[in-house]
């Protein structure tokens, strides 16, 4: 089962720009490699990453096979209100993982 690591500051000042780091364990098989018998290893990648802040989408990324295994994505957002940041990764073979983190804005 895939596991995700998320780094969100637990507290922030209102209006402050916070940096969010995410890492998820996934092979990101490109679909361009072959086995020793010559058959192509089928593609298995995460295609989309979405981050929502209290239900509003603030960041989205479309991933392709050129992204390294265990995709690592860093982005930022403005701390507007206390609440939940939720992260969703979806991909090939029905892959879907959702994680969330709380933030307290003062």
């Amino acid at each position, binding site marked *: 089962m895939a596991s995700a690591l998320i780094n969100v500051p637990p507290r922030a000042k209102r209006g402050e720009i916070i940096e969010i780091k995410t890492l998820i364990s996934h092979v990101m098989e490109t679909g*361009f*490699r*072959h*086995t020793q018998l010559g058959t192509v*290893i089928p593609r298995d990648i995460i295609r989309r990453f979405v981050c929502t802040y209290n239900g509003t989408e*603030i960041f989205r*990324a479309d991933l392709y096979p*050129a992204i*390294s*295994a265990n995709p690592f994505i860093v982005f930022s957002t403005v701390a507007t209100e206390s609440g939940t940041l939720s992260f969703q990764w979806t991909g090939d073979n029905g892959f879907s993982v959702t994680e969330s983190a709380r933030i307290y804005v003062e």
Partner: protein
Amino acid sequence: MDQAASRREFLKAARGVAVGLVAVVTVKPAHATPAEMQGAIRAVVGSGRITPGKVKIELPPLIENGNAVPLTVSVDSPMTEAEHVRAVHVFTEKNPQPYVVSFHLGPRAGRARVSTRMRLADSQNVVAVCELSDGSLWSDSAAIVVTLAACLEDGI
């Protein structure tokens, strides 16, 4: 004298063969080509004019392992409701596919700076194109030398 002449002839012939080899290699590229990358960029951002500037790619000039190359793209933008970055797309010249990643941002990002790790199949140019909220397109490219290419090793 005669011997020197034959040596010259040999070198001439050898140079001809070498030029022939280079020609064969350049005629058949193993991966996607810069032209395909241009096609991919047009397919993603449309036919608008792309101006160099505003966006900046940060890549190491030389990387040992092409399987995980740190990539940071930042855009010079105030990130307000009126003027912000809508999307940043990254493309490569010589990977099997020109697409790398598309980031969709908005005014709530606060700062237009994103990082990830990418795979590179060869030493090549990486291009980032950003779309601003006014519809303008800006680009930057970076050259990188890769010692150990990704995608070469095979599975079991």
